[in-house]
């Protein structure tokens, strides 16, 4: 009995509360039963959910709950101060409070997320040999005197990146007068910690969620069906398309790229694109469904991102709550597409500085700083181009910082940078004439081919094959473009439009997949060694993919891993289904009789359980 209680209530780092476990659903059933008793009393409901969320967070992160409570209290208090200063017309005082709040919040985030990164950076730069020191653990030990906290390590608290962004949005929204401060602390605590979205988003903005705090419970029959649909959808994505693929194929390749052939490495990269989407969106689907059952509406976080026709669109469909957060609280304050502000220059200099440390080369840093500043200055004098230049500059900075938000290693910065470059190249391409496009593309293709001849490194071979493919298709499109212009017999029709769409989708998907190389390599690593390890993995994978392939083994590989490849094809096919089809089956599901929905739930549970317990794919070498 004691064990059972201990299991229920104590924090165990090995068994966090995850949506994919029976334990979570038992927890949720009990919470929901109590919720159905309290739901009509708003304050009681909110307070109850606040405490439940705290318990949930404690089960997941242990004493990191103190950090959550700290930022909750500090921003609740500061929010009030900002509002008071605003109402008294003391704008600069309000600004002071806002800056204080942002500093506290980002300070906490930096300490827990970026301490290793910053320490490494300083050590690299000054040849020093600092070690991280967990000052909070040290202080904690001072109070309890039993040495329970380890001062030599800083453990990243689960979900800190998400709830820190939420509390920032709260004070910023009060400052910009989008909302009024929350009077009751329990209400506010509930907003910050609401358990379905606490650890992995979506990032809920204060102005969208706070009003819901004061609304009574309301759920239509259809909404109920949709909520169940999201939960099932998320479970299937998470367990089948993410966990199963990861364990049986992707993780193995990423952990030891050199054991696998070029084809397996490339497959793992593409499969990872599906996996990371299924994992992340699956989790937020469940969060949305769970919240909806309690009558709360969380924003949509993914909109079939791999349907995007270009990198810019991708970011409007991928992790939308983050993109919108960055747009509102970073891109627009930076000046957005109108202006270059102090922030723009600040970040150019900061990234030049980071590059200095990254490469150890003053020249590189100087180049980055001067390119950034020259571009910005061109904007100042060339009025006709100003808007575009500023927009590109600011969005590039936003992408870099967005990369850094995902994790504290160079790989995430590179990943963000690649996305920024992709976006800018797309914007430039979009505005070019076909003649100029082909001219520049041919020039680049020739340059890359020449480089790969003189420096036959795998990475250049890889690039040259890639760009030759792009060039070939572009030539065909160019010819088509000329034909449509000189004769009226050749016209764009549905077929050619579809071809163009497919090409754009594939090209974007390939590009995004390539950037994943840096994304996956940096995930789930020990922060102390993340930089070296991530970089090494990326390098090894490029080497494997860019070296000569043994084409004969490909059929064997596909045959041996047929489940993995079949799931990939199915997953992508469903992903690419037209939105109206998806809406159609979603709606029809929600209108099914409740007993039928219940039966489907049971069947899906049994179905995904087969994947949880499936025998692991045997380990096979194909290349010797």
């Amino acid at each position, binding site marked *: 009995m004691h064990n059972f209680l201990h*299991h229920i209530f104590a924090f165990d780092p*090995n*068994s966090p509360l995850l949506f994919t476990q*029976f*334990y979570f*659903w*038992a927890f*949720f*059933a009990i919470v*929901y*039963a109590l*919720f*159905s008793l309290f*739901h009509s009393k708003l304050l009681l409901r909110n307070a109850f959910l606040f405490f439940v969320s705290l318990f949930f967070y404690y089960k997941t992160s242990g004493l990191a709950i103190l950090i959550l409570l700290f930022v909750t209290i500090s921003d609740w208090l500061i929010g009030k101060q900002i509002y008071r200063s605003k109402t008294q017309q003391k704008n600069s005082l309000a600004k002071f409070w806002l800056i204080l709040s942002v500093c506290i919040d980002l300070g906490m985030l930096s300490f827990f997320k970026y301490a290793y990164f910053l320490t490494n950076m300083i050590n690299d730069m000054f040849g020093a040999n600092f070690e991280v020191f967990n000052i909070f653990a040290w202080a904690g030990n001072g109070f309890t005197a039993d040495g329970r906290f380890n001062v030599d390590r800083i453990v990243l608290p689960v979900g800190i990146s998400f709830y820190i962004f939420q509390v920032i949005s709260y004070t910023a929204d009060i400052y910009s007068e989008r909302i009024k401060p929350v009077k009751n602390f329990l209400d506010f605590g509930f907003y910050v910690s609401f358990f379905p979205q606490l650890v992995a988003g979506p990032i809920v903005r204060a102005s969208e969620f706070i009003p819901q705090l004061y609304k009574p*419970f*309301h*759920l*239509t*029959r259809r*909404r*109920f069906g949709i909520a169940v649909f999201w939960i099932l959808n998320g479970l299937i994505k998470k367990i089948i398309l993410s966990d199963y693929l990861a364990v049986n194929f992707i993780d193995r390749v990423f952990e*030891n790229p*050199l*054991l696998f052939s070029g084809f397996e490495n490339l497959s793992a990269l593409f499969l990872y694109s599906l996996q990371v989407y299924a994992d992340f969106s699956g989790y937020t689907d469940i969060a949305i469904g769970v919240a909806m*059952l*309690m009558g709360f509406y969380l924003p949509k976080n993914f909109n079939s991102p791999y349907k995007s026709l270009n990198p810019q669109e991708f970011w409007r469909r991928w992790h939308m709550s983050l993109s919108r957060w960055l747009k509102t609280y970073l891109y627009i304050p930076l000046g957005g597409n109108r202006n270059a502000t102090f922030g723009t220059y600040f970040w150019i200099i900061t990234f030049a500085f980071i590059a200095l440390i990254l490469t150890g080369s003053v020249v590189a840093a100087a180049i980055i700083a001067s390119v950034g500043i020259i571009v910005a200055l061109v904007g100042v004098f060339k009025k006709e181009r100003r808007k575009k230049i500023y927009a590109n500059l600011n969005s590039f900075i936003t992408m870099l910082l967005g990369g850094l938000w995902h994790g504290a290693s160079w790989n995430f910065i590179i990943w963000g940078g690649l996305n920024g470059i992709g976006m800018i190249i797309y914007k430039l391409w979009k505005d070019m004439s076909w003649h100029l496009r082909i001219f520049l593309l041919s020039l680049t293709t020739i340059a890359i081919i020449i480089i790969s001849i003189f420096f036959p490194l795998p990475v250049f071979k890889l690039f040259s094959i890639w760009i030759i493919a792009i060039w070939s298709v572009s030539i065909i499109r160019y010819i088509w473009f000329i034909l449509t212009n000189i004769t009226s017999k050749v016209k764009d029709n549905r077929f050619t439009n579809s071809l163009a769409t497919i090409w754009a989708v594939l090209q974007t998907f390939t590009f995004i997949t390539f950037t994943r190389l840096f994304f996956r390599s940096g995930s789930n690593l*020990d922060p*102390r*060694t993340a930089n*070296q390890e991530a970089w*090494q993995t990326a390098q090894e994978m490029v080497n494997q993919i860019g070296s000569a392939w043994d084409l004969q083994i490909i059929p064997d590989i596909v045959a041996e891993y047929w489940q993995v490849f079949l799931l990939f094809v199915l997953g992508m096919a469903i992903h690419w289904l037209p939105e109206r089809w998806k809406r159609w089956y979603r709606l029809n599901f929600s209108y099914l009789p*409740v007993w039928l929905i*219940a039966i489907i*739930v*049971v069947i899906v*549970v*049994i179905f995904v*359980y*087969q994947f949880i*317990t499936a025998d692991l794919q045997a380990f096979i070498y194909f290349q010797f």
Partner: protein
Amino acid sequence: MKYVPFYITLFIFSIIGVLAAIAAVFPQDGLTIGQATLRYPTLTQMFEQDTTLKESPLSPEELLAQRATQMRIQEEQEFLDFFRSNEARIQFPLKDGAIDYTYLDSFYYALNHADSNAVRVVHYGDSQIEEDRISVVLRRNLQQKFGGMGIGIVPLYQTVQSITEGIKTSQEPKRYMVFGSKSMRREGSKRYGPMGQTAVIDTTISITFQPRSKQTGVYSAHYFNQATLLTGGGNINIQWKGQKGTVRNDGSAMQITNLIVPDSTTNLTITLSGHGDIYGISLSGETGVNVDNIPMRGCSGTIFSGIDSKQLSTYFSATNTRLIIMQFGGNSMPYIKTQAQADKYIGTLLTQVKYMQRQAPQAQILFIGPSDMTTRLQGKMQTYPILPYFDEALSTALTEQAGVAYWSLFEAMGGVGAMSTWVRSGYAASDYIHFTRKGAYQVGEILCDALLTGYNYYTWREKDKQPIEYLNPDSTNMLQEK
């Protein structure tokens, strides 16, 4: 239509109920349909962690660290067992009441750095080490392991030829000795040089070196690229390999002159003329290990304070002497009958050892006691009765009072009565005192092994100061090495 949470609670619980009911009736090993097996968890599996794997309470890091610690403890235990109880062990001095296993560390450190800074071992002894015995093994093994060449120091005139190097001197010069017959002493002067003997020349005299390599072949000890002359008290003209030079007396206790010879020289003739003392000639390499063999026939080891301290300290510091081996005691055995006599002699030896410590503060001292010696007592061959006591008392005095290391040759060769066995096996001469060459080689080997076991322990301890590799996350990926 509106839904109230109560309905949804019912919905959730009925699903849980159905799932639980299925769990209750579902076969534990799954339901086999055709070739596929449908699995379903039991109720306990639903809410418990996977219990099939018994997880170690330790993280891999902790576990490996624990294993590594255990391994180290066991390894260290083996070393400690050796140094505590093996008869052939080096007995380390006491320091603050505990055995100081680090006593020879500075010597071992110097050996490790001998490739940049030559190290010298000076082996003093009685007739047991004449002919370069015992030292020859030490020299060969150390030079093999740490580099170095040359036989070390020799006197201008040698009465007992070395088995390693053939040395011919054109005539016997006037010689003074701090040991041996009283008639060999020097009136009013302690200037005997580091070998305890000096040759005084007043005419032209030449010395020729030539390897004795019939049995051994030419090896490191036969090569040298510098010849070092120790002189004093006058101007000496030197001629060697077509070169000429003069050492002018500068009034110092001893002058050290390096004669540069071509690399890998094996044969050399040096012609000396003028007036003055020649304290010895050393053949060595610029780096690596040198081992001096300095035998003092009939000596009990009580004469060192009779040598000019300045000469000793000059020599030890100029040659970077890091280990002084003093091997004495055998010559006194026949005359010591009582414990009191033994204690008195030991007292004298302590004074000598301390004197040497003062002259060579950078060097460690290893004292080697007498071998087993047997004599006929009441018609039976047996060990000198006082010998076991003497060995024990000497060891205690040296390690506890003088603070130097001790090696019990007596114990190493087998203790009481061992000499008879050695004589029968041809390891010792029928005088029941001296080793045969064969026996001396064995003694040299076991002494060397004892010293190198200490070295291995040192290396092992040094390794501990670096992080263990497989715990270091930065260590290179093994795959990369393929």
